[in-house]
């Protein structure tokens, strides 16, 4: 809260030098997805925080495109760990991998899928919400199973790039 008392506590030259380096540091972060970064060495701590539009700064990574629009949560893009692409729950509800009990699952691990293809259903109050692939790819992992309760944006399935 108290402003750094430069005049009192800082060696002006040094400050100028450090300032330069700090600017470089900041430039390196431009365009990157880093929002908050901190290093500690012994008694010294350095912390870098980059502003974002207010609403967004608290927002988690966005849902993949879905049967339901997810646009308005305007969050920053999220990294695709080891190149896999997450398919997430469009709302809170019950997960089903098949159109109805007993029917074959929409997809199996290893299946190649087209953009727009239905991969699963999340049911909320009798409403069947289709979960569709927002890109073509190959099913690499299915994390949910029939009857699971899922949260909004919970990862249900991972796609990997098709060969």
């Amino acid at each position: 809260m108290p402003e750094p008392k430069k005049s009192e506590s800082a060696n002006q030259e040094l400050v100028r030098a450090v300032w330069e380096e700090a600017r470089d540091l900041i430039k390196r972060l431009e365009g990157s997805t880093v929002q908050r970064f901190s290093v500690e060495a012994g008694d010294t701590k350095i912390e870098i925080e980059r502003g974002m539009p207010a609403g967004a700064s608290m927002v988690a990574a966005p849902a993949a495109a879905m049967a339901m629009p997810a646009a308005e949560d305007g969050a920053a893009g999220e990294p695709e760990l080891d190149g896999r692409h997450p398919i997430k729950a469009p709302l809170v509800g019950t997960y089903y991998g098949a159109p109805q009990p007993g029917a074959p699952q929409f997809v199996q691990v290893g299946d190649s899928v087209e953009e727009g293809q239905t991969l699963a259903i999340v049911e909320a109050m009798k409403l069947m919400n289709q979960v569709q692939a927002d890109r073509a790819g190959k099913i690499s992992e299915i994390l949910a199973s029939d009857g699971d309760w899922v949260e909004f944006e919970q990862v249900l399935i991972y796609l990997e790039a098709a060969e």
Partner: protein
Amino acid sequence: MFEKVLIANRGEIALRVARACRELGVQSVAVYSTADAESAVVRFADEAVQIGPPAVGRSYLHIPSIIGAALKTGADALHPGYGFLSEDPYFAEICADEGITFIGPKPDVMEKVGDKATARQLMSAAGLPLLPGTVEPVNTLDEAHDISGEIGYPVIIKAVAGGGGRGMSVVHREEDLANLYQTTRATAQAVFKDSAVYIERYLETSRHTEIQLVCDSEGNGVYFGERDCSVQRRHQKLIEEAPSIHLNDDTRREVGEAAVRGALSVGYTGAGTMEFLLDLDGNLSFMEMNARIQVEHPVSELVTSVDLIQEQIRVAAGEKLSVTQDDVLPLHGHAIECRINAEDPDRDFAPAAGKLDVYVPPGGPWTRVDSHCYPGWTISPFYDSLIAKLIVWAPDRDRAIDRMQRALSEFQISGRGVKTTIPFHQRILDHPQFRSGDVTTDFVEQFMSEEAAAATAAG
């Protein structure tokens, strides 16, 4: 008592409810949009479910997601807070269908009292005083003419489905009636999908006075005194206090008993508020009933020593009211609440939200802060701009004002782009007319034009 209560709200009221649950030994479940993932209630509640994106239409107003969260966590009751779905009979009904106790009145009762015209009929039948005017909708211009003539001008035409100051027009002269009657109906149709309007006498100036009550399911009702909420800007309350210095004990008992009678007469259960206008001659007129807990409930808590949220949860669980009318009267001391918003009073109260780099709430004797904020929290543009409710108690009104000034003077809030209404509250509390207590609903408007005039004069 309930096992687990889901809180279908956000911000300070969600935290307020979670605190009450904790004190009652009841588990709490927070629901949150992605914008609220770091919110205080998410950290504090026993469980939390992410229900949707920031847009309320897909999160806090999205019934399937909220019900889903309740079923997912096995909550046996749901507290709606205020705003959002708190007065939606359809939502209350769905909760019932899903076997979740909605903490509030029964859906049919909520619907009745929610309809202004119906509420006016029921309450006038129960003996509550109304302004001269119709309780029935006015369906033709001729009718409007006759009624307005009887009442005497000025009159006000109000949309039955209206509220919060929208869908009403004041008619000062008979020749304006036809035009305003038509436009009000048209607006009502457009805005509320219901063109029904009613007409009543218009009070040029009055005080906003409301009675807090709670009814249990055994037919017991208690009123918790009144609140004066006359310090409003465009129908947005800025400062509330309890008790009103303009009601004496007899009037308080009279209107309080009538309010409880009215509520019980429609089978009301839970916490509710009856809004009245108090004219300068001391006459009260029933305006409408709010079937929810209100933002300003803490001032009533502090002068009655009753935790209204706990009471609300108790009666919803089928328990008897924990207090009788005699326990809460006479009212104890005086309480004042200031609503601190992230708005810029110098720019017509434009939202001034952002990240709170500094947030140091006041403390010390009889100083209560109901807030979801902490250092680093971001006031999101997606939701209302309330930062904190600052409430103080003192043995009398003068000392309560002094205490509020002290508390405001130590409240530290800052962040890039963040402005608050604290300076505005300080100036209002400094105003001799506020100190005198002679405040009507047009006070803030007068106050602001005074300030504008002074500013112009100054330079």
